[in-house]
C-alpha cells in the first residue's frame, strides 16, 4: 500500500511538473511597449524625443557626425579638403585612409558599411515611432499627433538625404512591416522626390523656433532645420535627380521644377526661396561677429547655428569621439585632450587659403594650427627634445620614413579647445555644428549666380565677416561660381560639406571613367544579406 502510494506520488509529481506558466518569460529589466507608453508624455518621449539620442553618438561609425569611420569621414577624407597620411606605424589601418583619399575604396569599406547601417537603423526607428504614434493615437490630440508625425518624418527625410548623397540608388522603406523581399531600390530622382515631398508635408507642422539653443526644441528638427535641408536638396538637385551620374550629363537646375509650399519653382529659385524663409524665420538668425563664436565651447547661443548635436555629459551620450583626430599627441596632451596625430589640411586646402602667401586668408589661423604652436604661451617640447612645429607643406599621403612623419600637416583648430573637457576631450561643451547660417548665405549666393543674378551681398557677408572682426584688410572678390566654390571650401572647412561641393562643381573626379566614384558602393554586407539590391555602377 505504502509502496504503491509512493509510486503514484512520484508519477503524479512527474506529470504535474511542467506547468505552462512556468515557462513563460516575464521580463524585468526590459519592458514591452504597452507597459511603457501609458500617456501622451511617454509617447512623445519614446516615439519622438528618443530619436535625438541617435543624431549624435558615443559609438564609432554612428551619428550624423561626432564619431569616426562613418558619414563624416566619407564626406571629409574622400574630398581633397583633408587627409590622414600614413605616419610610419600610425594610420595605415589596412589602407582605409589611403583608399578614401585616392578613391580606391571597395564595397567593404568600413565607413560605407557604418554609414548605411546607421542611417537605415535610424530610419527603422523612425518607422517604428510612426507605428507607435498610430497605435497609441488615442492618447494624443489631433494637434499633437500631427506635430509628432511631422517631426519624425522630417528626421527620417534627413536620414534619406544623407543616403541620397552617399549611395544614390537606395530603397525607400517607410513601414516596420516591410519584408526583405519587398525591399527594392528606387532611382536617385525618385528618392529625391520622396524626400522633397516628405519635407513639404512636414514643414507646416514644425515649429518655427531655434533648435541650437537650450529650451524645449534643443537639438531637434524644427522648421528652420527642415528649410535648410530643402535648400541643400534644391542646391544639389542637379546631382541628386540625375539617375545616371556616370554619363557626364545632368539635368539643369533651371529645368528642375520643385513644388515649394504649393508653388512650382526651379531648383535655384527654390534655394533662394527657402534661404529667405530661414532669414525671415521667427527663430531670428544672424551671422555671428566672428566664426569662432559658432564653434566656441559654449556655442548654444551662437546666433548663426541652425542645427547642432548637443554635447552635455550629464544629459546626452553624444560625444566628440575621434572626430578630427588631428592634433599631435603632445599638443593634445598639453590641452588636456587625447591626441591622435592624424588628419591635416591637404596641399590643395593650403593653396585655397593662400597659405604662406601675402594673401593668406585671415581664417587660416582660426581653422588650423601650423608652425610652432604654443600652449599657455609656452612652446611644446617633444619627447625627442625638439620643439613641436607643424609643417603644413610637408604633407603627403605616405609620410613613413619622412623626417616630418609626425609633424607634417596643418591641424584642425576650428572648434575651440574647451579647457573643461573631460574624457580626453570626448566630452567638450562645444555642440557639434551641423547646419549654420553662413552656409545658407553661400547657398543663396550660388543659386543666384547660377540663375544669372548677383549673389555678391550674400557672398561678401560671409567672406569679409572675419576680416572685419579682426580688423584686417581683405581682398575683394567677385561672387563668381569659382569664387563661391573656394569660399565654401574656406568657410566650411572641417564641416563635412566639401565632397558634396566638389561633386556639384564637377571637381570631384578628373577622368570620365571615374565618375562612378561620385557615389559610394552599396555596402557589401547590405548586398550579401539582400541579394535583390543592385550594386552601384562601377562597383559591380
Amino acid at each position, binding site marked *: 500500500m505504502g509502496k504503491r502510494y509512493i509510486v503514484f506520488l512520484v508519477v503524479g509529481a512527474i506529470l504535474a511538473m511542467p506547468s505552462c506558466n512556468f515557462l513563460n518569460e516575464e521580463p524585468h529589466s*526590459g*519592458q514591452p511597449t504597452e507597459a511603457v507608453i501609458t500617456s501622451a508624455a511617454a509617447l512623445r518621449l519614446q516615439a519622438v524625443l528618443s530619436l535625438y539620442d541617435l543624431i549624435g553618438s558615443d559609438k564609432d561609425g554612428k551619428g550624423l557626425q561626432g564619431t569616426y569611420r562613418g558619414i563624416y569621414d566619407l564626406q571629409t577624407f574622400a574630398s581633397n579638403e583633408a587627409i590622414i597620411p600614413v605616419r610610419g606605424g600610425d594610420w*595605415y589601418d589596412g589602407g582605409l585612409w589611403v583608399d578614401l583619399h585616392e578613391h580606391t575604396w571597395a564595397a567593404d569599406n568600413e565607413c560605407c558599411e557604418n554609414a548605411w547601417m546607421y542611417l537605415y537603423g535610424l530610419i527603422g*526607428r523612425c518607422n517604428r515611432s510612426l507605428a507607435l504614434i498610430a497605435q497609441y493615437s488615442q492618447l494624443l490630440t489631433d494637434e499633437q499627433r500631427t506635430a509628432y508625425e511631422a517631426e519624425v518624418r522630417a528626421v527620417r527625410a534627413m536620414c534619406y538625404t544623407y543616403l541620397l548623397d552617399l549611395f544614390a540608388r537606395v530603397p525607400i522603406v517607410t513601414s516596420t512591416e516591410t519584408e526583405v523581399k519587398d525591399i527594392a531600390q528606387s532611382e536617385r530622382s525618385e528618392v529625391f522626390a520622396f524626400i522633397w515631398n516628405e519635407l513639404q508635408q512636414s514643414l507646416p507642422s514644425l515649429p518655427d523656433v531655434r533648435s541650437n539653443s537650450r529650451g524645449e526644441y534643443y537639438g531637434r528638427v524644427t522648421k528652420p532645420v527642415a528649410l535648410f535641408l530643402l535648400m541643400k536638396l534644391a542646391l544639389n538637385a542637379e546631382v541628386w535627380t540625375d539617375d545616371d551620374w556616370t554619363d557626364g550629363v545632368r539635368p539643369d537646375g533651371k529645368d528642375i521644377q520643385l513644388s515649394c509650399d504649393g508653388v512650382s519653382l526651379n531648383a535655384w529659385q527654390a534655394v533662394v526661396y527657402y534661404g529667405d524663409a530661414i532669414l525671415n524665420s521667427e527663430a531670428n538668425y544672424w551671422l555671428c561677429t566672428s566664426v569662432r563664436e559658432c564653434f566656441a565651447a559654449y556655442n548654444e547661443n551662437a546666433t548663426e547655428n541652425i542645427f547642432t548635436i548637443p554635447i552635455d555629459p550629464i544629459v546626452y551620450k553624444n560625444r566628440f569621439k575621434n572626430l578630427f583626430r588631428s592634433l599631435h599627441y603632445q599638443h593634445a596632451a598639453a590641452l588636456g585632450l587625447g591626441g591622435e596625430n592624424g588628419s591635416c589640411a591637404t596641399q590643395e586646402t593650403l593653396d585655397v587659403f593662400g597659405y604662406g602667401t601675402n594673401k593668406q586668408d585671415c581664417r587660416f589661423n582660426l581653422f588650423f594650427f601650423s608652425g610652432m604652436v604654443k600652449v599657455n604661451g609656452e612652446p611644446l617640447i617633444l619627447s625627442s627634445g625638439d620643439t613641436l612645429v607643424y609643417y603644413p607643406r610637408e604633407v603627403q599621403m605616405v609620410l613613413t620614413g619622412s623626417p616630418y612623419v609626425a609633424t607634417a600637416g596643418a591641424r584642425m583648430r576650428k572648434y575651440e579647445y574647451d579647457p573643461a573637457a573631460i574624457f580626453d576631450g570626448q566630452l567638450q561643451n562645444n555642440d557639434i555644428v551641423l547646419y549654420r547660417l553662413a552656409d545658407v548665405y553661400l547657398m543663396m549666393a550660388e543659386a543666384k549666380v547660377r540663375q544669372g543674378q548677383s549673389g555678391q551681398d550674400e557672398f561678401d557677408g560671409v567672406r569679409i565677416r572675419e576680416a572685419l572682426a579682426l580688423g584686417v584688410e581683405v581682398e575683394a572678390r567677385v561672387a563668381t561660381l569659382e569664387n563661391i566654390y573656394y569660399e565654401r571650401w574656406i568657410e566650411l572647412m572641417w564641416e563635412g560639406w566639401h565632397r558634396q561641393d566638389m561633386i556639384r562643381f564637377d571637381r570631384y573626379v578628373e577622368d570620365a571613367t571615374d565618375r562612378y566614384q561620385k557615389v559610394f558602393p552599396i555596402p557589401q554586407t547590405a548586398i550579401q544579406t539582400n541579394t535583390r539590391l543592385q550594386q552601384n555602377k562601377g562597383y559591380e
Partner: protein
Amino acid sequence: MGTMRGKTLILSLLWVMPLMAMPDSIAVETPAALLAAQLNQLETLTDTLKVETSKRGYLVNAIDVLSGQTAGVTVGSNTNPEAMLSSVRVRGNHSLTGGNEPLVIIDGMSSDLRTLATVYPGDIESFTILKDAAQTAQYGARGAAGVIEVRTRRGAEGKFSISYAGDAGFVHADHFLPMYSAAEYRQVTTDRGLSIADLGANTDWQRAILRTGFVQNHHIALGGGNDQTNYRASLSYSQNNSVIREMGMRNFTAKVDVTQYALNKRLQFDVGLFGAVGHTQSINDVQKLFYSAAAFNPTYSTGRNASGGYDGYPDASQINNPLALLDIQKHNDAMHFNTHLRLTGDIGYGLQVIGYGSYSYDADEDSHFWPTYIESTGKIYRGAGKAHVWLANVQLKYSHDWNHQHKLEAMVMAEMQGRTTSGFHTTVNRLASNAFGYNNLAIGALRLWDGTGSSLEQQRMVSLMAQVGYTALERYSIHVTTRGDASSVASANHKWGFFPSASLSWNMKKEPWLRDEAWLTRLQLSAGYGLSGNMGGIAAYQSLELMMPTGSVQSDGLPEVVLGLTRNANPNLTWEKTHTANVGLEFGVWKNRFVFTADYYYSHIYDMLYSYQVPVPPFVFDKMLANLGKMENQGLEFGFGLAAVQTKDWDLNIGLNLTWQANKLITLNGWYEGQYLTAPQYTPIASVSGAGLHGGNTDVVYQIQGQPLGVFYLPHCTGLVPTGNGDYEYEIEDLDEDGLIDLSDGGDRRVCGQATPKVLLGSNISVRYKQFDLSVQLNGAFGHKIYNGSSLSYMNIGSLPYYNAMRGAETKRINDLTVTDYWLENGDYLNIDYVTLGWTLPCKEHWKLRTLRLSLSVNNVATITGYSGLTPMINSTVISSTMGVDDKRSYPVSRTYSFSLQIQF
C-alpha cells in the same frame, strides 16, 4: 549499475595503476583492488578519469587535470591566467553562439567550469566525460556541448582519517620576445636617421613587469563513518601569485558531504555543502600590457615621476608605460555556495525512487580602478552580480535481471530548473585623488548616465525523460532514450523540443567463441545515434520585443531617459538541434596490459543558433539571433595504453590519446518567416590590431560558409620587394588576375589553413622504481596554423622610433603593415606539460601514518615547435577575437617549479 554510458577510458586506469596512495583517499585502494573495481565498471561505457593528483605536476585548478588526458577534450590555456580559467571543449565547437562549454555536473549538481575551477583538485575523485548524444541524453539540452561529470571524494565506512596535501613552488619566466635593447634601439634609430626620445635609461620592459611567481596550495580533509553514517569534510587554500607583478589569485574552499542510511539501508540521504571564496587580480588589457612591454621606449626609466605616476610617451599612442598599466586594478571577488540533497529509496520490486534537489548561489564583485595618469581624469567601476540556480528532479528506476540472460532497466525522470541572474554596476569619473583606489566611489566627481545600470534575468527549463535499456546474454545491449526539453528562452510556440537517442553495444568477449581466449581481456563494439537540443549561451527574452533604456535626452530643459529596442526580437526562436552518430571499439589484451580504443563520430547541427547578419533595411539592427545555419563535425579518437613493465620493483606505463577532428560550416543561409536570408560569404572572427592596424583589411581569421570555422583567409605574399628607399614591402599576388590588387574580402585573398588543430595528442609516461616514480605528460597539437601578428608589428621597421622593434628588423627592413600570409606559420607543437618525480614512504599496516609522499614537479618544461613566435599555445579553439592570431598578447613563457607533500593518518 550499467546505464547508458559511453566507454571506459581504460588508459586512465593504466596511468593510475602504479598506485601510490591517493592524496587523501580514505579508503586507500591497492592497485589490484582498483583494477578490479575498474574492470567491474567496464560495462559502463564512459571516459572516466581517475584523478590522482599526486602524480601530476603543480595543478592550477581542477580543470587543469583534464589537459591532454582524454581524446576529444581540449583544454585551452591563457583564457584568463590570473583567474586560472581555462576553456574546455568536448569534441570541438558545437555551436556558433556560445553553448560550447561542456556542462559540469559535480556530484549530480548542475554547475559550470568556473565553479569547477574553484574545487580543489584533491577533492575530486573522478571525471567522467560524456561525449555523444546517447551518453549525454540523460542531461538533455544542458549537455549539448558534452558533459563533465565530477565525482568528489566522500566519506567511507571505516575508521577516522585525516590527511594533508600541500605544495609550494615558484614560477619563473625565461622566454621573451627579442626586442631591441636600449643600446640597439639607439643604434638602429641613429642608423635610420630618426630622432628619438632618449631618456638615458636602459630598460627591458618585458622583464620590468615581472616578478618571481609564487604558488601554494594547502588542503586538509577528514572523514570517517560507520555503517549508518559517513562523512567527509575538507578545507583548502590556494594562492597563485603570477609572474606578472600585482596579478594573481587566492581561493578558499570548504566542503562537507554526509551520507546517512535509514530503514535497513533502503533509504539513503546524501547531503553536500560546498563553498568557495576567491579573489583575483587580473591584467586589465592583456594585449595592451604585453604590446607595451615589448614596444615601449627602452630608454625610459622604471621609476615613478614627481607626481607619483609614470612618464608616458605620447607619440606611441597605442601603448603606454607598462608599469603604469600595472597600476590599473581589475579585481574580482567571487563567492560560490551550493548545496544538494539526494534521497534514494528502494521500494522493492526492483524499483528505486530518487529525489534530488540542489541550490547554488554565486556572487561576484568586480572592482576596477584606473588612476588619473592612465585614463584621462581617472575612473572607478564597481559592479556586482548574483546568480541563483535551483534544480529539482524526480526519478523512478526499475531494473531486473533474469539470470544474466535478460536484463532490463527503465527510468522515467522529470526535472525543473530555474536560474535568476541579477547585477548592477556603476562608474564614476574625474577622481580627486588616486590614493583611494576603488574603495570610495565618492572620490569621483562625475557619474554619467551610461555608467550605471542594473538587470534581472530569469530562465527556466523543464525536462521529461524516459529511458529503457535491455541487455541480452550479457553481450547485446540496447538503450533507448526519449526526452522532451522545454526552455523559457525559446519563443512562445517553440518551447518544447523532442530528442530521442539510442545506442547499441556488443560485448564480443562474452561470446562463447571468445570467452575462453585467455589473452583477450576485452573486446566490445558500440554504436549510437541521438538527436539533442542546445540553447546554451542564449540570454533570456530574445523572442520578446522589449524596450530598454537607450540614452538620455533633454525635454523642456530637464534630462529624460529614452527607451528603445536594442535588438531585433525573434518570435520564432527555438532549439538548435544536433544529430550525432558514433561507433566505437574497445580492445584489451593480457589483462588489459595493452588496451586500444577507437571512436568515430559525426554530428550534423541544424537550426543553428547564431546572431545572423540580417539586412538593414528592413531590420533595424544588423544582427538577429535565429535558427538558420548548418554545421558538421566529425572526429576519430584513439586511445592506447600499455603497461610495458609490471614487476615488484619496476612499472612502466605509457598512455596515449590521439584525436583527429574536422569541422565544416555548411551554410548560414536559411528561411526566416518566409524570407530567405543570406549571410555574408566572409565573416571576420579575428584580426590584428595595434598601431597602424585599425580596421581596414586587417582581418585574419574568418568564418566562411563551406569551410571549417576559423580559417585563415589572407592575401598571398610572394616575397619582399624594395620600396625604393632601401626598405622592403610585401609583394602581393593578384590572385584573381584582374590586374588589380584588392585586399578586401572577396578580392585577392584565399583560404590558407585553419586555426583549429586537426590532430591533438596527449601522452603520459610513468615509471616507478620501488618507492620512486617519475611521470611525464606530453600534449601536442598539429595541422593548424597561427598568424604571427606580433611579428607583423614588431618586424615592421617603420614602427620605429615610437614603437620598439624586434631584432632582425634592421636587416629585413620590412616597412609594411599589410596583412598577408607572410606571417602565417605552422602552429604544430609538442609541449612537455609536466615532469614529476615522487617518493612514497612504504607505510606498514600497523602505523598510524598511512601515507607519506614527497614530490618535485616542473610544469611547462619545454615546447618543441617550429613556430617562430613566443609560444604556439594560443587560443586555437574558442571562436573569439583572439582565435588563431598571436597578436602581441602572449604571456612570457614561464615554468613552475614546485614541491609537494602528502600525508595521511
